[in-house]
């Protein structure tokens, strides 16, 4: 391996490379350690060193998107609801144990047609953010969402979801109330309903908490929104065991709308005004309204059974593996 190249490597990256290198060197000293995985590791590492410049560039770009997706001036669920749906009525409570303000649910009209709208609510200032728990939901929120979805299903109202959450709330009470099964049941219910589900990621699409609203017949992402199995911070803590890996993790996770489209996870990317949605919130809301109207038209006249089976087929075909 050409050690000269190491001099050009940015600091954030160098530490990891050196750690891996020294481990490899140690392994090399073991007389008969010639396992194939060792050679692979070395090839891997040099490939990584070669491509550091591109990685660094990519990482910057991706991190910019992560920041945009979290920008507090970005239009939020309530902005879209106010700007898109007429006669919106907010509905509350899971009818079991409580009301979770981090999820907004209700009925409204778009283009004269009644729809159910469910979305994560983040809040714009500290007071609101605390009130809505930063958009991190508890089982009561997911169960409220299920209640409204069932209601919509019974009356044939299409379901529109607006996703914007760092993830489900990790807390003792949430766990005690069955966080895992609340999310699983939300996902399950979205495979059962016989009305169109249109899911739009408007900001952060954090893990299971996002997926609990995102099993759509059509899934779209705003250009600068993100969708990820774990937050870059969480990923760095587990794999890098160090917060310094956060930005690199963001890149490795491939969480941008373009990545999602390329991987066939989403159906559409909704363009944002130049510089991001926060620069022209009203325009953004209008664009999303147009998109929803178009999406609803696409599902016009398709039977409930067909909608349900298309959803199952779509999500059951996701995955990449080799078949020998």
């Amino acid at each position, binding site marked *: 391996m050409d050690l000269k190249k190491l001099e050009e490597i940015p600091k954030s990256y160098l530490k990891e490379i050196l750690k891996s290198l020294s481990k490899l060197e140690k392994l090399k000293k073991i007389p008969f350690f010639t396992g194939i995985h060792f050679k692979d590791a070395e090839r891997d590492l040099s490939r990584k060193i070669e491509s550091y410049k591109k990685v660094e560039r990519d990482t910057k770009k991706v991190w910019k998107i992560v920041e945009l997706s979290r920008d507090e001036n970005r239009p939020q669920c309530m902005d879209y609801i106010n700007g898109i749906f007429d006669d919106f009525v907010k509905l509350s409570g899971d009818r079991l144990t409580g009301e979770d303000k981090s999820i907004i649910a209700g009925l409204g009209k778009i283009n004269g047609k009644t729809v159910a709208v469910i979305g994560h609510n983040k809040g714009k200032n500290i007071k609101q953010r605390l009130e809505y728990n930063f958009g991190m939901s508890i089982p009561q929120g997911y169960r409220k969402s299920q209640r409204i979805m069932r209601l919509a299903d019974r009356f044939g109202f299409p379901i529109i979801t607006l996703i914007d959450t760092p993830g489900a709330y990790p*807390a003792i009470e949430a766990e005690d109330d069955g*966080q895992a099964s609340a999310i699983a049941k939300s996902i399950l219910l979205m495979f059962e309903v016989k009305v169109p589900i249109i899911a739009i990621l408007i900001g952060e699409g954090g893990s299971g908490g996002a997926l609990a609203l995102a099993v759509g017949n059509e899934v779209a992402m705003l250009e600068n929104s993100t969708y990820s*199995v774990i937050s870059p911070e969480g990923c760095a803590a587990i794999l890098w065991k160090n917060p310094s890996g956060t930005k690199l993790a963001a890149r490795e996770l491939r969480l941008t709308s373009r990545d999602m489209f390329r991987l066939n996870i989403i159906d559409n990317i909704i363009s944002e005004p130049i510089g991001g949605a926060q620069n022209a919130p009203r325009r953004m809301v209008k664009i999303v309204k147009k998109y929803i109207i178009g999406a609803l038209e696409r599902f016009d006249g398709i039977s409930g059974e067909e909608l349900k089976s298309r959803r199952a087929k779509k999500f059951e075909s996701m995955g990449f593996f080799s078949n020998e």
Partner: protein
Amino acid sequence: MEKIKCKNCAKEIENEIFILNLRVCPYCNYHHYISARDRLQITVDNNSFIELGKNINSDDFLNFYDVKSYSVRLKEAKLKTSLDEAVIIGEAKIDGNDVAIGIMDFGFMGGSMGSVVGEKIKILSNYCIEKNIPLVIFCASGGARMQEGVISLMQMAKTVSSVNRVKENKIPYITIIANPTSGGISASFATIADIIIAEPEALFCFAGPRVVKQTIKKNLPPDFGTSERNFKNGQVDMIVNRSDIKDTLTNLLKLFKE
């Protein structure tokens, strides 16, 4: 005589006794990690297992690299566990009852679910519908496999949809929760079973203790996330010792047969 130390009570156990006791501490009943192959051995009838989905393999389709590349991690996991992936699936008999069985192995990259685990759960679901036999899945997993990015998140939806079809076909679906079962597994196919059996003191939660502690900045109750706490909260049907799981399954399978 070789000895191992119990992770819970720290008492030394003779290796042979430990293995004969199904890797359960004879002093404190702590249930240690058991490999998928061993689990299979103690659960299904001799020579009754026919493996399915053997030909599918994980792909490092994102070229994911943290401190190691995903492809290297996969190879290491394969060498370490002698398994191809974090779950083995197949058809087997449990005391004469036909079942479609899936067993996860926490030793394979923390039992994490990527595309292959998702696909195998789907293959198993399709198989049990085709044969009209009950579905039994032993869960042991930290959650989704980060190295497959959002594709691993989608496996939650994929597996839920697959087992949903099993349920729609009126086929019994039973999960057994082993230590640990969390994240993307607990929030997908593990918790929507008709019957949920948990091993004693297994960690069964959505967010793990470390994450919760970091977020709420408070100490957690000592039983946080355990089977026992989940039982108290109504999240599992029963807590069963490893040695009794086969009998419990046999009883349940007979009840559904009528």
